[in-house]
Structures are given as structure tokens and as C-alpha cells.
């Protein structure tokens, strides 16, 4: 299987290119024809973050002729631990600009196409049609399903990887006759069951490992060489340094690539993943207190019990001196709390504390509130000496 422009004679290599790619050219598995295929190929990197960084860097170095970079975000200080295409000086800049600059430095022969926009149902098909292969480096379920469905509908292979904490998954979805992401996971988990990397953390090296697997698969698809990860799911456990390979089958019942597809056009993926449902109750259903208000009342000497519902290792990073009960232990340790006192629960960003308040109200606590925005908002609005993480 080879993906992309099969008529590569127009993509003759210059002498500079022959020198640059000489380590490829001496291998018969790549050779002149393979390098010309790479030059003719058009690959879209959706996301230029943890996964997208190594994918884009290596594909550019390898001589992929056209690289699309799509990202709506700007470089954040917390990105630098793993998103190696961006540097400290890039903080605050659009990721697409930062990434394009590095690619130009590594290989000015690459035609970089910048899409500084959020991938959406409105733009995905039009953009995907301009590329041969899509590398999914996104970071949420809604966009994962959007990328998958758009790949199936446009007939583009979806070179996939995802990461969480110390583990990753990789595959090639939506290739001819291969399963798609929905064959594997027809529906997303409910909001909150699988934390994001921002909530659960991720080993900085892990997207490098998985991103390079993606880049390798992209190159193999272009060359039409080797055994692509079609119909196979690779599980990577960085802590055990164990790689497991699982066989996948195309599902006849798949709603997008099955025999009788029900998804024949792009849908509302936020709604599909329940994202809106996740945000509304957490914010609206529980009472909140703003950081400035809590500070004022604490300084006034009011009797407020500050309850920290984060994990002990987060408490070590920074704390407000609150009483620590991780939200997962609240049900069994609720007896440690005094329902007659006013309680303000906080976490990192306000989601877990909202759940904690919801639980406490459910078991009879009446004077409970969640610190809006958590300790991050406290750092932003009240005390910048409290470190953000």
C-alpha cells in the first residue's frame, strides 16, 4: 500500500536534496523513487503539541514535501516539558508560527501550510482533501472523533496516537480495508471518567515515543513499504517499557465505515462527547466562591474550613494550608468534616471541588462552596507566589 502521489517523476531531486537525503537514498527500501514519493507527499499534522512536535520535526527532516500544521493554540509555559518544537522564547506565540519557524530552520525545502484555526466540522473535510495523510496529534475526544470521521469520509489514512500519564496507544485507522477509530471505540467515555493530560499528567518523553511511531507510520505509508499498523493497536507502557500489539478488526456495524453507515457527514462532536453537558452542571449546580472573596473573608477572621480535595502529590507542589481529603476518599472520610462549619473546597481548577461540593450537599452539608477556578485562580487573582502547575 502506498499513499499519495504515485506519479513522482515530476518531483526530481536537486543535487542539494540528493546530498541532504543521502542516508535515505543509499537504502533500496527508500532510494530515489521513495525520496521522490516523500517529496510529493502532503501530510497534515492536526495539533502541534506533544505528538505533533516530533511528527512535524521528523517528517520535515525526512523530506516530506508539503506539511500542513493545524493548531489554534498559543505556546504556554506548561507546554515546554514535552512540546519540543516550541522554545521558551515562543511562549505566547501561535503554535503554528512557532512550529513553522523550526521546520524552516531544519529543512527550508519543505512547503509548510499553516492553518491557525480550530479543526471543526465546518472546515475539516475541505482541509483534509488537500492532503494525502492525516496525523492525529489532538488532545480531546471530540476532536479525535472528528479527525476519524473526516478521514473516513475523505478516504485519508488517520495515523493515530494518544497518550496519558506513562502510556500510549498507536494505530493507523481509516486505511483501505482497515478499521477506523470508531471500530475500536464506537463511543467516547463519559466526561470526567478519563482525565486529560492537564488533569492526570503526562511523562514529557512519552509524546516523543508515540509521535515517532506516528512519523514512522506516515513514512511507511508514503513509501508503500513495511507493515503499517493497519488493523493493529500498539500499546506502549513507558514505565514497564513494554510494547504490546493487539489485533483489531474492521467492524461491520461501525457507524461511519461499516456496511450501513449512519454517520455520513460530520456531526456536532462536542455534543457527541457530552462536552457541553460536562461544563454546565459543574459550573451551575454548585455554589462557588471567588478567590478574592475567600481571601477577604479569611483575612477578616471568619470561620471558614478550607478543604483541599486534590491528591497528596499535588498538595506538595502548592497548597493553601487546607485540610487534605482527595475527592476519591471523600465518601469514606466524610466523618472527618464538621457539617456545622462553613466549608470551601478547592482543587487545581475547580472541577473536582465542584464534584466534592455536590457530594457533600447530597449527604446533608449546607454551608459548602467550591473555590471558583481552584488554586490556579488563587494564584492568578490573589497570590502569584503560589506556583501554578
Amino acid at each position, binding site marked *: 500500500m502506498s499513499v499519495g502521489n504515485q506519479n513522482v517523476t515530476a518531483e526530481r531531486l536537486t543535487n542539494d536534496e540528493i546530498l541532504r537525503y543521502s542516508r535515505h537514498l543509499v537504502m533500496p527500501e527508500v532510494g530515489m523513487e521513495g525520496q521522490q514519493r516523500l517529496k510529493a507527499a502532503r501530510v497534515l499534522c492536526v*495539533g502541534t503539541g506533544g505528538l505533533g512536535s516530533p511528527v512535524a520535526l521528523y517528517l520535515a527532516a525526512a523530506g516530506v514535501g508539503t506539511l500542513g500544521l493545524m493548531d489554534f493554540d498559543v505556546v504556554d509555559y506548561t507546554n515546554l516539558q514535552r512540546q519540543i518544537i516550541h522554545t521558551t522564547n515562543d511562549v505566547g506565540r501561535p503554535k503554528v508560527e512557532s512550529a513553522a519557524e523550526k521546520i524552516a530552520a531544519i529543512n527550508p525545502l519543505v512547503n509548510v501550510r499553516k492553518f491557525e484555526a480550530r479543526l471543526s466540522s465546518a472546515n475539516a473535510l475541505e482541509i483534509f482533501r488537500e492532503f494525502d495523510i492525516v496525523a492525529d496529534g489532538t488532545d480531546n475526544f471530540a476532536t479525535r472523533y472528528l479527525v476519524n470521521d473526516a478521514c473516513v469520509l475523505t478516504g485519508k489514512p488517520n495515523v493515530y496516537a*494518544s497518550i496519558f500519564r506513562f502510556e500510549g496507544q498507536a494505530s493507523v485507522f481509516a486505511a483501505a480495508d482497515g478499521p477506523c477509530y470508531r471500530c475500536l471505540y464506537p463511543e*467516547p*467515555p463519559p466526561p470526567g471518567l478519563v482525565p486529560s493530560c492537564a488533569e492526570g499528567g503526562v511523562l514529557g518523553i512519552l509524546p516523543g515515543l508515540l509521535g515517532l511511531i506516528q512519523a514512522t507510520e506516515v513514512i511507511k505509508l508514503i513509501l508503500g513499504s513495511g507493515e503499517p499498523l493497519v488493523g493493529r493497536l500498539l500499546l506502549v507502557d513507558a514505565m514497564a517499557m513494554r510494547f504490546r500489539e493487539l489485533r483489531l478488526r474492521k467492524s461491520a456495524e461501525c457507524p461511519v465505515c461499516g456496511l450501513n453507515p449512519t454517520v455520513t457527514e460530520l456531526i456536532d462532536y462536542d455534543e457527541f462527547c457530552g462536552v457541553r453537558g460536562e461544563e454546565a452542571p459543574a459550573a451551575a449546580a454548585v455554589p462557588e466562591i471567588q478567590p478574592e472573596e475567600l481571601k477577604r473573608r479569611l483575612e477578616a477572621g471568619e470561620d471558614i474550613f478550607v478543604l483541599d480535595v486534590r491528591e497528596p502529590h499535588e498538595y506538595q507542589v502548592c497548597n493553601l494550608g487546607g485540610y487534605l481529603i482527595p475527592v476519591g476518599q471523600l465518601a469514606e472520610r466524610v466523618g472527618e468534616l464538621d457539617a456545622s462549619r462553613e466549608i470551601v473546597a478547592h482543587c487545581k481548577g475547580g472541577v473536582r471541588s465542584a464534584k466534592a461540593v455536590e457530594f457533600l450537599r447530597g449527604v446533608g452539608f449546607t454551608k459548602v462552596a467550591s473555590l471558583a477556578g481552584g488554586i490556579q485562580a488563587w494564584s492568578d487573582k490573589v497570590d502569584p507566589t503560589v506556583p501554578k502547575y
Partner: protein
Amino acid sequence: MIRVVLPPNLRSLARVNGEVQIDVAGQVTQRAVLDALEDRYPVLRGTIRDHVTQRRRPFVRFFACEQDLSHEPPDTALPHRVVEGDEPFLIVGAIAGG
């Protein structure tokens, strides 16, 4: 002993590290393994199988010996190597980080 590998978010939920080893009485089937797992870690109820229907939830899959067992009937015997403890029963869940 049956070895079970949980996805990372469910390991956090159950407060376990690495593989889980569980005793299963009688024939070793998906249902028997999941029943024993949920007996030992009640917090996992509803996360792998639906609370009401007891069917596998669509964002997790079951594998053993590289093969996808997700669509096997729940009372089908698991592979011999899983029963013998040579291979784990893998519960694989969707993750989305990038």
C-alpha cells in the same frame, strides 16, 4: 491467579499499580473475571460494564493473547494462557491526550 491489566484511569480509580491478580472460582470467563474484579474493587462497577445491562461499555475493549475478545459472549472461556496466568486479560480503554 488471573492477571488483569486495567487502563491507567481505572487503576487510579481502584488505587492499584500495575497488574491486578484475582482469584476466579469455577470456569474462567469474561463474566467471571469481571465479577471477581468488581467484587474486589467495587469502585470499578459501571466503568467497564454498564451498571444495568452488564454489557461492555463502548469505550473499553477486552484483549488476551493479542486477540480482541470484546465481542465474545461473556460466558466464553478465556484462553488457556490467561487461565494459567501466563498472559494477562487486558482491559483497554480510550485515551485522548496528545
